């Protein structure tokens, strides 16, 4: 059981606040990755406030709870905000993002013992392997909880992803739900212009995954898809959710362009963006 179990209206309220956090964090240090963070806000809010069984009183081993791994570590702002809003650490600590001596490193890390983070990520392509290993450890431990991992679609360029894609079905790792943020953008431009990904549904299916597709920016589609994914675990196959999102979702002038992948808004842009997002749970 999720410790919050929020309804859709409450999730929308939290998502608006998380988006405010993301924008204010990257603005304050004039660095970080707002585009993917905004696009994945509904997903992380859903996982932590509705879907996952988890305990904000953080324990690294995560026994008897669901685990989440962020493979595309550059969207750390959304994860930090959601973790803080879920009570893993003080919301005020978001103000230290990317600053010297902070636990909120540019990319997630364990070295500073930030609650909620179980492995460093940022160098892409490693999270699916890590999550698969964690899922197998759960099986060995007779722990029936699930492991979630989020990857970017640009990240699928990395060869290691496909090593893990072969491994998980071969070893029947069926307590694993992987999610690809299919926003179609990467640093240099649209994913299909940089490195054509082709039919991802067919690709993952042919590797032996059970594949779902959903709209990652609409709770009314996303929550049922996540529930369906849960219901499909334990049947001998890992689950892949191809999650269509819009990079920069929630701020009109940031939406749908790779331009906001790794660029922070300036003062005027921040103000314009914040006007579009209702402050609900108090800014940090």
């Amino acid at each position: 059981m999720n410790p919050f179990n929020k309804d859709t209206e409450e999730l929308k309220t939290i998502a608006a606040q998380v988006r405010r956090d993301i924008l204010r964090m990257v603005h304050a240090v004039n660095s970080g990755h707002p585009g993917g963070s905004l696009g994945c806000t509904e997903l992380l809010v859903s996982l932590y406030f509705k879907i996952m069984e988890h305990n904000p009183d953080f324990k690294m081993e995560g026994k008897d709870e669901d685990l989440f791994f962020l493979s595309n570590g550059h969207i750390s702002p959304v994860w930090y905000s959601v973790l803080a809003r879920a009570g893993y650490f003080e919301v005020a600590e978001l103000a230290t993002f990317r600053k010297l001596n902070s636990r909120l490193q540019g990319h997630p890390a364990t070295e500073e013992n930030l609650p909620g983070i179980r492995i460093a990520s940022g160098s892409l392509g490693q999270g699916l392997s890590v999550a698969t290993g964690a899922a197998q450890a759960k099986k060995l431990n007779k722990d029936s909880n699930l492991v979630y991992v989020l990857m970017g679609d640009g990240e699928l360029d990395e060869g290691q992803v496909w090593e893990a894609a072969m491994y998980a079905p071969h070893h029947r790792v069926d307590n694993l739900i992987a999610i690809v943020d299919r926003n179609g953008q990467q640093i240099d431009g649209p994913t299909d212009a940089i490195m054509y990904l082709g039919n991802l549904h067919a690709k993952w299916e042919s590797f032996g995954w059970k594949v779902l597709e959903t709209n990652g920016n609409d709770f009314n589609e996303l929550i049922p898809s996540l529930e369906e994914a849960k219901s499909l675990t334990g049947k001998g196959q890992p689950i892949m959710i191809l999650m269509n999102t819009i990079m920069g979702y929630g701020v009109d002038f940031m939406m749908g362009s790779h331009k906001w992948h790794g660029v922070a808004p300036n003062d005027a842009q921040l103000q314009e963006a914040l006007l579009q997002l209702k402050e609900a749970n108090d800014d940090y």
Partner: protein
Amino acid sequence: MKDFPYTESKDTRSGFGAGLHELGKSNPNVVALCADLTGSLKMDAFKKDFPERFFQVGIAEANMIGLAAGMTIGGKIPFTGTFANFSTGRVYDQIRQSVAYSGKNVKICASHAGVTLGEDGATHHILEDVGMMKMLPHMTVINPCDYNQTKAATIAIAAYEGPVYLRFGRPVVPNFTPADQNFQIGKAVLLNEGKDVSIIATGHLVWKAILAGKILAEQGIDAEIINIHTIKPLDEEAILASVAKTRCVVSAEEHQLNGGLGDSIAQLLARIMPLPLEMVGVNDSFGESGTPEQLMEKYKLNEGAIVEAVQKVMARK
């Protein structure tokens, strides 16, 4: 010069296999992963007796390192097995981010290190692995010298919490260290006391150092011989105590001079006790095909090279 009797020669990789099998029996958290080299790594016994804790990864070393890092999160103690080349250079970034930086309790077990892999040639010989691994913060680097020591090291690293690189090899070498040795990570082993020169060796070069010590004794040179099985953390205290007495050092290893044990000793001496050092190792070159014996001869990784280095370093005292 002390005598080092032995009754048999064995490969260090078999010491790893035997140690891993022992761990299978004694520690239910120990799991093993292998990238399609189960026989070469001598992991068959573990695989046979503990199949539910053995994970065949296929020829996908990057995935193997990530899986192992993930398994630690459930309290498992993963031992990964492949050749030293594919355990390090091929997966450096995976080890760096998912294991070392993340402080994960993964044991990276690397066989067929150095030129003694032999005929396969330079694509498979790695002579840079110790350098790569010792540069990583949090990483412990161990290179035992014979079967018994490799078995003891394998068992010891399971009880240590943190990432470890364990390096061993393919050729059969004299098995002379005690079967019941108490392997202490980071503790040098003083094999022979002497006063004229400190020979500090690791891995397969330890036996070569003993052979060199015998030749030197015939020449009236009294060599102190130290087995450094743990290159990081380096037992600085033991090295400095020896060098304070002998006033000169020869390092010996089956590795590049750049980045190896000799490099660590050079840093230590330069910082604290600047005294002459000669280094036996591979000097900025790749290996090549040949028998292990031919390669050890050609690349000056044998007792003759150590004796020559001793004569050179003593003349510099």
